């Protein structure tokens, strides 16, 4: 016999072609440099999303989406069902942490200019996913049918309703009628457990496909340093090296979630009463606070426009510009960064932090 003995192809290789799956896994490598830590936040967001899917399915076993039953069914989960408090608190905490890690992921991609060519569509799908995640938060907030959620939903949908031309139609679409009622609860339930998960799954598939296809982005500074020979090009395979590190993070996140749920179980509040005054100290979820606070400061009329409409139009315009950043930042390229866009990012983070702080004060 001549040559080394041939390895018998695996069951999968026989069917999909030798090495296809191995090749797929080996394709992804992670660059090692001083900003590598930011590569963990996308995976962490994905992990928390999976936690949301699993705990969400568990909550579905008991939850009833009608105004007469919703509050009571969540109360039942919290007080009667064994470990119900744990499942619901983990769902709420994980939701909030997921929004946090999604924002960290988004801003790290922004500042490291990972949106530049050829990753424009990865950025766009990521931004759409961020909006969907906020939609999950907004729709899920109403489901326990408590007072805070009831008024937050009133205000939030009213804001959507003040958009010119389509506003009225959009408000009725969201509320399932003119007012926030049981019809709204049924709709939000449908959005939260069917529409948004469907959209999120499709977008997530594209997002991950793009990441797999294009590989990880190098920040311009690191790229330049490597090109000029000031820094060695170092990488590690995604499987298993980086993936194992990811899993350590996820394992720790599970511990944190369990601890948060046990030490600070999520409040349920008082059942919503459509014929009671809005309680003092009412405010939306923390990730909407900077917008909420801005609306508080805007005067009733700015020139010819209602102040609130101006605020909503400005925030919508800002969001659209943010989605389009890869197409606006024409100057960024190999080893080059753009001061203007970095400055704009610092301004946006600063604005969000200051206004959130003002709202919490």
């Amino acid at each position, binding site marked *: 016999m001549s040559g080394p003995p041939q390895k018998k192809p695996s069951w999968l290789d026989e069917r999909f072609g030798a090495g296809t799956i191995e090749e797929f896994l080996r394709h992804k490598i992670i660059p090692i440099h001083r900003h590598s830590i930011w590569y963990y936040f996308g995976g962490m967001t994905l992990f928390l999303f999976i936690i949301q899917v699993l705990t969400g399915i568990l909550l579905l076993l008991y939850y009833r989406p009608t105004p007469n039953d919703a509050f009571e069914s969540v109360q039942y989960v919290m007080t009667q069902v064994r470990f119900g408090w744990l499942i619901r608190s983990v769902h709420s905490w994980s939701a909030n942490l997921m929004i946090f890690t999604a924002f960290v992921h988004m801003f790290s991609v922004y500042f490291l200019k990972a949106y530049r060519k050829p990753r424009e569509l990865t950025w766009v799908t990521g931004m759409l996913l961020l909006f969907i995640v906020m939609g999950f938060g907004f729709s899920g907030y109403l489901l326990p049918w408590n007072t805070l959620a009831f008024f937050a939903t009133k*205000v939030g949908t009213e804001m959507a309703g003040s958009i010119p031309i389509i506003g009225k139609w959009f408000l009725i679409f969201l509320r399932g009628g003119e007012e926030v009622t049981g*019809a709204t609860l049924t709709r939000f339930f449908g959005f939260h457990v069917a529409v948004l998960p469907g959209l999120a799954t499709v977008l997530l598939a594209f997002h991950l496909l793009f990441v797999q296809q294009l590989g990880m982005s190098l920040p311009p500074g690191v790229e330049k340093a490597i090109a000029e020979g000031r820094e060695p090009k170092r990488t590690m395979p995604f499987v298993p090296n980086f993936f194992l590190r990811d899993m350590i993070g996820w394992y720790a996140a599970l511990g944190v979630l369990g601890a948060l749920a046990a030490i600070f179980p999520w409040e349920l509040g008082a059942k919503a009463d459509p014929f*009671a005054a*809005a309680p003092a100290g009412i405010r939306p979820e923390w990730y909407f606070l900077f917008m909420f606070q801005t609306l508080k400061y805007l005067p009733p009329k700015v020139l010819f426009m209602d102040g609130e409409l101006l605020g909503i139009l400005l925030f919508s315009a800002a969001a659209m510009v943010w989605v389009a950043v890869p197409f606006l930042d024409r100057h960024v390229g190999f080893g080059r960064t753009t001061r203007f866009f970095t400055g704009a990012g610092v301004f946006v983070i600063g604005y969000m932090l200051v206004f959130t702080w003002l709202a919490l004060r």
Partner: protein
Amino acid sequence: MSPPEIPEKAGQPGRRWVNILLGGGLAASVVSFLYPAIRYIIPPAVAESTSRSVVAAKADELKRNTGKIFKFGSKPALLVRTADGTFRAFTAVCTHLNCTVQYRDDLHQIWCACHNGLYDLEGRNVSGPPPRPLEVYEAHVQGEDVVVTRSA
């Protein structure tokens, strides 16, 4: 054997008509599928309550300088008994973003907790973000009841 000659290519009149008919037919069928779905999404309008007046409270129920939310049709409304003992009624729906307002006995004003809007006891928006005054209803005592009426 040479392949059969194709009489028309894309861009030639016969092919264009086929494309228009096929595309038009397809577009028309898509519209006919989407139209019912879009109409389905928008719920049928609920008949507005036509009753123009309602018993908001018993006359002796409210102390001076207090307020009470009551149901007027499908919407909340606010009955205030002022410090001098007169009754006033307003819609309780804030003109800013639709929250339900309340009477503040410390300020003698109507307050919206959502964005800190204030109205005076004529319903006028006096501070904060509300862009318009509250709709004012008529409140009068009929026997033991306080009856609130909206004009037209």
